[in-house]
Every structure is written in structure tokens, then in C-alpha cells.
């Protein structure tokens, strides 16, 4: 094995220009894909955080008795997907509004009658665990709550949540497409690099075959070469991404978008590098199968 590794490293060194171009291209490809994964990862986390905090406001009709109110609160509390329920009286709602309006509160002072309705503030989520509801589940819960006859209207920021959710789905789709491009790109780049090396070394390989070298003696160094270059390229791509991340966080400060940005987990980095190596190996396989077919 030492001999194979030595030969693979010698080949990388002997074909310095082709090897450098290959490694840099793989690094750029990995940088592109891992940047997107980083973005998706953080956006996904934000999404979960927001979903955790989703509250449904159920505005009530005005003519409800105290008994009916208690019963309704109990019923809502027992509904699946409701973590907690809090009654917000129309007076409390007005106080909150006044507080939020600060300097314009005098406008509200002139009101003869409080126009706001009583409401229930419903905190969504699983009762037994910390799991948040996704957008679809929140939508279904809101529709369910609206069926109570005492409820006039429900609100849960449906428009922006829906928009954000569909944008996130689109990004996820783009992420898959980029993953696909990465796979094809890595196979193609490594495959071509191996083809070039085979071409420059065709006499040597022909001699090896004619003197009776087994296929594995010829193939293994190429596979190692593909794996080393793809792995090295991926590592460089991730290091560049990390440097960019550190620069961004240190220059503008984490939390500049009111959220913390996290770097990819070690597991994710290892998976990216391992995938790159695997696709590098596949690229070798394609080229070597063509060369050694007869």
C-alpha cells in the first residue's frame, strides 16, 4: 500500500498544474455547495425557532358568558397542538396597545369605548415534548379553533409565515439541485483529470500491462490520486468557508440579524469531505473503466 500511496503522490506532483487546477476547482465547488448548506442549515434553525414561537390569537365574539369562556378555554387547552392558552381581556389588549404606541397613546385616551375584543393567546407546540408545529400543522390548528362558535377570528401571521415557508422550500430545492451539480461536477472533474494523467502516462501504463501488471497495480494509485485530490479540494473549500464565517462573525458580530449564525457541524464537514472523496473515486472508476476495457 505504501508503494501505491507513493506512486499516487508522485503522480500528483508530476502533474502539478493539472492537479492544482483539479484541487482548486473541487475546492470552489465544495465552497459553493457548503455555503448553501450553511445558509440552509441556519435558515432551517431560524424557521424552527420561529415555528416554536408561533402564537395563534383567537379573537372572541362580544356576548360570551363567563361560563362559556371557561368552557371554551378548557376545550382549546385540550386541543392537540396547543401547548398553553392565556386569556387576554379587551382591557389588557388596550393596555398593551397603549404601551406599544408610546407617544401616540393620547389618541387611544379619547376613545369612548374599547373597540378591541377579548381574545385567547394560544401557544402552539407539542404538550409532551419540546417539538414545534410546522406551518401546515399551525394552519390546521387555527382552522380547528375557528370552528368554535364563540371565536370570531383567528390570526397567526399566516401571510409572512406562508411566504417564508415557500421561499425556504424553494431554497431547499435549489440546495438539492446544487448538490446534484456538485456530484456530477466532482465526477466529471476528477474523471477528466485522471483521463489526462492516463494520457500523459499511456506508454508507461501500456508497458506495465504488457509485462503482466495486474489491473489493481495500475488502478489503485489512480483511485488514491482521485480520493486525495477530491478530499484535499473539499478540505480547502471548507477551510475557506470557515475563514469567511469567522471574518463575518468577527467583523459584524454574531446576532447582527437578531439571530445567531452557526458554522456547519463537524459531522456535516466530514460528510462533505467524504462525499467529495467518494465522487472522486467514481470519477476515477469511469475513466479507468474506459481505459482498461480491453
Amino acid at each position, binding site marked *: 500500500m505504501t508503494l501505491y500511496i507513493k506512486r499516487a503522490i508522485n503522480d500528483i506532483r508530476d502533474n502539478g498544474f493539472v492537479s492544482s487546477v483539479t484541487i482548486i476547482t473541487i475546492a470552489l465547488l465544495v465552497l459553493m455547495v457548503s455555503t448553501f448548506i450553511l445558509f440552509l442549515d441556519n435558515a432551517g434553525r431560524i424557521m424552527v425557532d420561529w415555528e416554536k414561537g408561533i402564537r395563534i390569537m383567537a379573537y372572541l365574539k362580544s356576548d360570551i358568558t363567563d361560563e362559556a369562556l371557561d368552557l371554551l378555554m378548557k376545550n382549546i387547552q385540550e386541543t392537540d397542538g396547543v401547548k398553553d392558552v392565556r386569556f387576554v381581556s379587551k382591557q389588557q389588549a388596550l393596555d398593551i396597545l397603549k404601551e406599544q404606541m408610546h407617544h401616540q397613546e393620547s389618541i387611544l385616551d379619547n376613545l369612548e369605548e374599547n373597540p378591541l375584543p377579548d381574545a385567547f393567546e394560544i401557544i402552539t407546540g407539542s404538550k409532551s415534548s419540546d417539538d414545534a408545529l410546522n406551518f401546515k400543522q399551525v394552519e390546521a390548528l387555527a382552522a380547528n379553533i375557528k370552528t368554535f362558535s364563540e371565536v370570531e377570528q383567528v390570526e397567526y401571521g399566516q401571510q409572512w409565515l406562508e411566504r417564508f415557508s415557500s421561499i425556504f422550500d424553494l431554497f431547499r430545492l435549489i440546495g438539492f439541485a446544487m448538490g446534484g451539480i456538485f456530484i456530477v461536477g466532482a465526477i466529471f472533474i476528477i474523471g477528466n483529470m485522471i483521463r489526462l494523467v492516463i494520457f500523459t502516462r499511456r506508454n508507461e501504463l501500456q508497458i*506495465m500491462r504488457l509485462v503482466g501488471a495486474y489491473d489493481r497495480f495500475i488502478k489503485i494509485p489512480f483511485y488514491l490520486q482521485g480520493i486525495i485530490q477530491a478530499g484535499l479540494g473539499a478540505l480547502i473549500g471548507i477551510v475557506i468557508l470557515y475563514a469567511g464565517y469567522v471574518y463575518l462573525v468577527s467583523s459584524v458580530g454574531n446576532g447582527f440579524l437578531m439571530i445567531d449564525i452557526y458554522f456547519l457541524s463537524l459531522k456535516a464537514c466530514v460528510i462533505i469531505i467524504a462525499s467529495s472523496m467518494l465522487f472522486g473515486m467514481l470519477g476515477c472508476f469511469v475513466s479507468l473503466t474506459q481505459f482498461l476495457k480491453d
Partner: protein
Amino acid sequence: MIVNENKNAIIRLFHVHRRYGNKKALQDVTLDVLKNEFIFISGPSGAGKTTLLKLLYLEEKVNEGHVLVDGLNLSRIKKNGIPDLRRKFGIIFQDYKLISTKTVYENVSMVLEAIGQKRRQIPKKVRSVLRTVGMEDRMDSYPPTLSGGEQQRVAFARAVATDPKIILADEPTGNLDNDSAAIIMDLLIQFHTRGATIIIATHDMELIRKKGGRVVTLRDGRIQSISFQESPRKL
């Protein structure tokens, strides 16, 4: 079906045909090459000499007929058995096929590594074989800095480094001056006396006359004649 068992034959061809499209490169060639024989395959360019050699180490395959090498029927050899077959041969080409980016030493050591020779034995073996062909003092040189004769000696060293049973030489002296050609012929004779079977494809009648031996003459892919050229030393 293979008949006429000949226990002294190391290579046997039975009604061998080889075509490239419509062109018939070899037609109905039947021939035995005996162990430790020194045999010439002669004929003009395009007669099928190189094709015949290539069939022996499975660089090409027959369309019809059978080829036996050291008891192995080549029609029955699977792909993973080809390297073992090729280890029986040492092959010398007219254009040497040396790797110009490797030194003389590396050109020879490369084939020993390729056949899995123990690494610590390789330097000794390479030096020994380069000494035999008189190229030990040039082992750090690169092929482009050598003369044609020197390059062919290195190619010879590479071919015999693996101790093959059979040496195939395709126009080994075709690009060489008389002195260099004589050195190569002497080396072939030397390995013949050590027990190797030598098959030389050449159209150089002068070479055949100088050495002597059985001569198979091909023309248009067929065996035109099989004769014996007396060695001048015996005359």
C-alpha cells in the same frame, strides 16, 4: 481440435486466422515453436509478423483457430489471467517504448515493481541486468540523452529483467546501426544460451544470415515457407 501433441513445443498455433475488418492479417497459420528455439519470423512489411507476435501475448485475439503458450490455451484465458500469461514474455519493440521522464534505472525497476517483485530485491536485480547489457554506468541517465543502440539495450534489459521464458523481439535492430545491431543480437544469443526461447520478427535478411536458425516466412498473412538458415559459425 488440437492434435499432434508436441511436448517440446512452448508455443503452438493451429489454423490461426486474424482479420481487421475485411483485411486478412493472418490466414490459416499453423506453427510450433520449440522450447529454447531461436526462430525468425520473416517477411515484408504488412505480412503479419507483428500481428502474429501480438496474438501470443493476447494484445490481439484470434478470429479462428487456437494458440497455446506453455500449455495454456489462450482462447480459454479470462481477462484476469492475462497478466500471468504476459509474465512468460519479455517484449522488445522497434521503437523501444522507454519512458522518457524516467531514468534508465527507473525504466527497468518499474516493470519489477509492476510484477510484484520484493522491493528490497529490485535494486540488485536492476543493477545486475543493466550490467549484463553494459548500461550500468548510465543508469541515472534519461532515455532521450542515449543513442538508439543504448536505448535498445535498456529496452532489452527491461524485457529480460523479469526472467521471462520467451523473448519476443519485433524488428529489434530496425532502427540501429550495424554495431548496435550486433550488440543486441549478441545479447539475444546470450539469453538463448541461458535457456530462453527467442522469437524475432524481422525483414532484415542480413540479420538472419548472420545468426542462422529456423525461418518462418510470411506473405500476405500466410506462411509462405519454413526453412533453416545455417549459422555462419557452423559453416
